[in-house]
């Protein structure tokens, strides 16, 4: 593999900024989908289960 390398990047000079970008997008998708699934698909659905014990 090393033959294909253009440069060696050490620990201190590497900031995974692209990873941070990708994972931020993932985070936002998760939050939006969670809210949609919980409050629209689930809590907004029919036959709401309640805790009234008859």
């Amino acid at each position, binding site marked *: 593999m090393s033959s294909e390398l253009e440069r060696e990047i050490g620990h201190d000079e590497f900031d995974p900024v692209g990873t941070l970008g*990708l994972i931020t997008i993932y985070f936002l998708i*998760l939050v939006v989908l969670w809210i949609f699934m919980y409050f629209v698909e*689930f809590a907004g659905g029919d036959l709401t289960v309640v805790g009234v014990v008859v």
Partner: protein
Amino acid sequence: MSTESGTFLDQFPAEAKVVRTAFYSSFVALFVGALMGILQVLHRTDVLRIVDSADYYSLLTLHAVLLVLSFSVFFLVGIFTWAVTTSLDRGLQDLRYTWAWYGLMALGTLLAGIAVLGAFIPGLDMSAAVLYTFYAPLQAHPFYYLGLALFIVGTWLAGLDWFRSWWAWKKDNPDERIPLPTFMALTTTLFWILSSAGVAVSVLAFLLPWSLGIIDQVNALLTRTLFWYFGHAVVYFWLMPAYLLWYTMLPKISGGKLFSDPLARVVFVLFLILSTPTGIHHQYLDPGIAEGFKFIAMVNTMFLLLPSLLTAFTVVASMEHGARQRGGSGLFGWLRALPWRDPVFTGMALAGLMFAAAGFSGMINAGMNINYLVHNTWWVVGHFHLTVGTAVALTFMAATYWFLPQLTGKAIWSKSLGLVQVLVWFVGMTFMSNSMHRQGLIGVPRRTAEPQYSGFDYEVAVGSMAELNMQVIIGGTLLFISTLLFLTVVVMTVIGDKVDGLPDNGYADTLSGPEDAPLVLDNLKLWAGIAALLVILAYSLPLAAIITRGGILGPGGSPSPQFVDTLLFVGRVAADTVGGVIA
């Protein structure tokens, strides 16, 4: 890492044979399991029904057992054996012992498989259409339970084999850190033994004696709870070898180094301590278990997201490191510099991408009350086809393109076909899993031969039912084609000739190495102790409550179907025959 260079086969020919055999066993299971898969797709969607709907469940049992137990576990014992041998740079302690556990696992699979397939042999009163979860009072032939028990004992002995290697290595290297791949294999073994003890108790103390007629009935909720005590940890048993490959192989193949060895250790320790005390989240909708216990299981499950979320960062950062070393630049432009031509890389990267999607449906599944929406619907099946069916299976297939030359000394027959294969899998799973999730949300149940009912129609939000079914058919067909392509590449590689100049055996270096990891992380006794303690805390009260409510052996319901009478009859006939011969 090894002082001797060369392939794994050059370094450890005897161990390579073990790993190879385990892989081939896993591929046979993959083929039969995938065949069952396509049959189910066509059956459920009513395109082609070659068996009676009553027999569909035998196919489903075979599909699940062969793919989630045989395919994945045979492959992972291979990977862990490779990982321990390579990273400790020493052979296994006693190969006769190694072959013994392999033999037990193979025998177990065979017995369970015979029990399931018995349903299709006229005159043979044998069946095990109990699915992978074998909830009592559904009853399987004793061979099925015996097979599962042997298989699991085999995996325990395999785990002990890796521990024996490590103990021997530690004597020679008292002051060294446990190499990361070995650390991963050992922590996985620990939680595997801890969790599978539950299913072992369920099978050996209750189900097997019950199927043999020694006890009359079992407590359905108790055996079900013992199954799920094991049933969630088992998914991490499948997943950990994929994680091992993402941590130790993917950075190397990307042209970089593992971003952080210490965090990788933290992740595996978290899995060790949190994998088992979560199983009750599969029982959110079970009567007989207090809401408080369900809530505790949920909190544990939610925190179990943490190691996976950390993994996402560490693995992607390692890939980014590789891409930037290869000349990639920009915020996202580095993605172009990754080795997409290599099926090993692309397969694993796509598997990881799908695992990110699976993470979301898993978060929904983990939620306690939202479970009313998705429980036992096809959504759940869509979810685990992204996890074990892609994150694990696709990673394993991709890894095979790296391992096979290491194990056989032969070059991959066609890397291009390998690339096509992993891409076809990704597209196929996109269609199939998407449709499964969406059908689940409108209430289509899982585990049914005919989801078409006479009394009502499903209310489809987007598109139509026909369209959703078409997605499943297209997806399932592509997945089956992908499996065939994979097996073609494997077979053609294996029957090819040995070549020189294969890459050396090895795994990725680290940017931040083990020297940065606190020593306490390597204290396996401590973590195993905490794991056991958490399990006791999470499970003692629910189990005690279940036993107090229903009794240890009931109230059970009647076994269905019963094999006891047949067994007694067969036994008597056999005894008479033997008696007659002797006389």
